[in-house]
């Protein structure tokens, strides 16, 4: 298998960044975050955020408009083909999550041009998870430390080297373009074995089989009141979730010109469903918390054919009051039995 010494990784990424937009984890103050490559990479920690921002940026300008009744309206900006995106070191949960976002943004009647353009030429390089965190439970969703769904290249990491296994044509292209940095030889058998053995104790407490069907009849269950009582109503869980995709579009007018943006939005915010007339169909945290988990574990299954959760545990790490996908699945199971 082709491999690279970890010492040479930065040179490879620096070279890659001339023809790719590299999205990778790096140390930012006290945390490790996914972001555009700026000369450093962290290959150890699992970042606090997901890599969805590479394809669905938190904020992006759609266009700038300018005009008066006399001059007429002109639009500038818009989306031009940028360098293809390289996700360097997704985790198996991240890669799988991208396939779920694809169903939302690429399939059906409303394919999203920008998402499609970024995603079409992207390469996702995923590293096997040798040390899952206390908060990891991907195996509850049929993913695992060595799952390859959604990846173009899979990487096995031992103490000194990274072994590259191309899985798709795009992945093979990426590897071929960096042969100068890679050496031939060896199969990381012990790493593969380690990945198979990696334990996720949390997954043993989580039960998802039949959850969607069970929730069909739980819309009015008192458990939502109990779960939401401690919710602080921030959007941390949704913004860090690799499968949450809601956004809103808004204008920033400045007299005779302005910009139109789109930005992530969160179903946990009080104004998410606020109507122009002042009516709010989800007036309290109970309705908002219910919406979040019903979307993940019921509506998503009906619309996209799968749970919209990959067990990455980011909401567990993000929530300051312990209200997250794992606790919800646990509480819902207790309530529904």
């Amino acid at each position, binding site marked *: 298998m082709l491999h690279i010494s970890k010492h040479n990784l930065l040179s490879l990424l620096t070279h890659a960044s001339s023809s790719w937009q590299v999205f990778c984890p790096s140390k*930012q*103050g*006290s*945390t490790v*975050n996914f972001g555009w490559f700026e000369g450093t990479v962290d290959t150890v920690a699992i970042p*606090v*955020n997901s890599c969805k921002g590479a394809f669905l940026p*938190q*904020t992006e300008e759609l266009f700038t408009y300018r005009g008066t009744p006399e001059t007429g309206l002109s639009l500038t900006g818009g989306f031009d083909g940028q360098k293809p995106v390289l996700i360097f070191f997704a985790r198996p949960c991240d890669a799988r999550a991208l396939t779920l976002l694809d169903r939302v943004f690429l399939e059906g009647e409303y394919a999203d041009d920008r998402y499609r353009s970024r995603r079409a030429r992207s390469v996702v390089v995923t590293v096997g998870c040798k040390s899952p965190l*206390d908060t990891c439970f991907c195996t509850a969703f049929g993913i695992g430390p060595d799952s390859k769904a959604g990846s173009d290249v899979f990487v096995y990491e031992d103490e000194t080297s990274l072994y590259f296994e191309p899985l798709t044509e795009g992945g093979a292209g990426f590897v071929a373009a960096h042969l100068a940095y890679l050496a031939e030889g060896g199969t990381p058998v012990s790493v593969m074995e380690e990945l198979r053995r990696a334990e996720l*104790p*949390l997954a043993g407490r989580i039960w998802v089989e039949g959850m969607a069907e069970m929730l069909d009849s739980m819309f009015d269950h008192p458990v939502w009141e109990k779960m939401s*009582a*401690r919710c*602080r*109503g*921030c*959007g*941390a869980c*949704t*913004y*860090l979730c690799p499968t949450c995709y809601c956004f*809103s579009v*808004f204008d*920033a007018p400045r007299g005779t010109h302005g910009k139109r*943006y789109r*930005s*992530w*939005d*969160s179903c946990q*915010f*009080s*104004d998410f469903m*606020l109507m122009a007339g002042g009516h709010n169909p989800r007036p309290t945290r109970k309705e908002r918390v219910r919406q979040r988990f019903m979307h993940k574990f019921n509506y998503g299954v009906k619309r996209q054919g799968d749970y919209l959760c990959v067990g990455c545990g980011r909401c567990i*790490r*993000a929530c*300051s*009051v*312990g*209200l*997250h996908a*794992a*606790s919800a699945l*646990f509480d819902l199971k207790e309530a529904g039995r």
Partner: protein
Amino acid sequence: MNDLREQLKEAVASAFSQGRVRSFVCLERGFYPFATMPAILHSGSDADRVEIGLADAPLLAKYLLDMPKPAGIVVRSCDALGVSRLIRDRRVKREDLYIISISCPGVVDTAKIPMSMHRITALEKAGDALIVHTALGPTELPWSSVLLDRCLACVSGAASTDADVVLDDGRGKPPAPVDYSEIDEVEHMAPDERYAMWEKEFAKCIRCFACRNACPACSCRKCSLDLPEPEWLSRAVILPEQFMFHFTRAYHVAGRCVGCGECERACPVGLPLMKLNRKFTRDIETLFGVDDARIPRDVEVLGTFLPDDPEEFC
């Protein structure tokens, strides 16, 4: 510790049975072993759920806003300041509250325990150590190395909210000396360097509002930043808006911040928000000669005009 918990359960149950409260906010067992989370009780029969909160205890004061009154609350000294803040900001009335104060040895931050939570069978405080029991035997960690950051600046004893019941097992943490050295460090940075630091930090902000929503001093019925009209803060997560948000937040709580650090604990991307808050707190102490500006008082330093106030801009 168990004794204190038994006393607390009894006190909560009797608050309900005596008709003193309709609801009660406390901690209960969290999803993770040894972690705790907020619980809002509606009956004395739920009192068995009450936990002291040895580890990962969120602060509770802000839940009082939405609870049926009269409402009960269990506070440790940091949380007591939050309750006091809400009372002085006229968001809750003292007569609508039933306050049980407990002594607190500090709260463990499980993220600072260098081993898998799933392998731990028990956590125990013994003197100046945390003993972590696992199947492979116990490990001893220095108590101060595993505490939440807020406990390192504990206001113990300074809590000014009068409690209805005080439960003290004599094992409470002594107050920590106030240490502003990290503020000094920021102040001594060159302006460009300091700006670059904040730029880097704010660039990480995902604008989830966890800091605002956790803060007992951020208790407006409707936050101006949530208003669709006028749009003070746009949804665009771009650097100028990040500065706008963070300075608005910090200035809004200046003079009212109780130093509990719950904003920083709630921040999912680890912004050092207390550096801003504590800078204001120290400035207030220095400029107005106030002793420990975290403690809410009847005459608010920034809410009162006195003829001899410093007027540095004149």
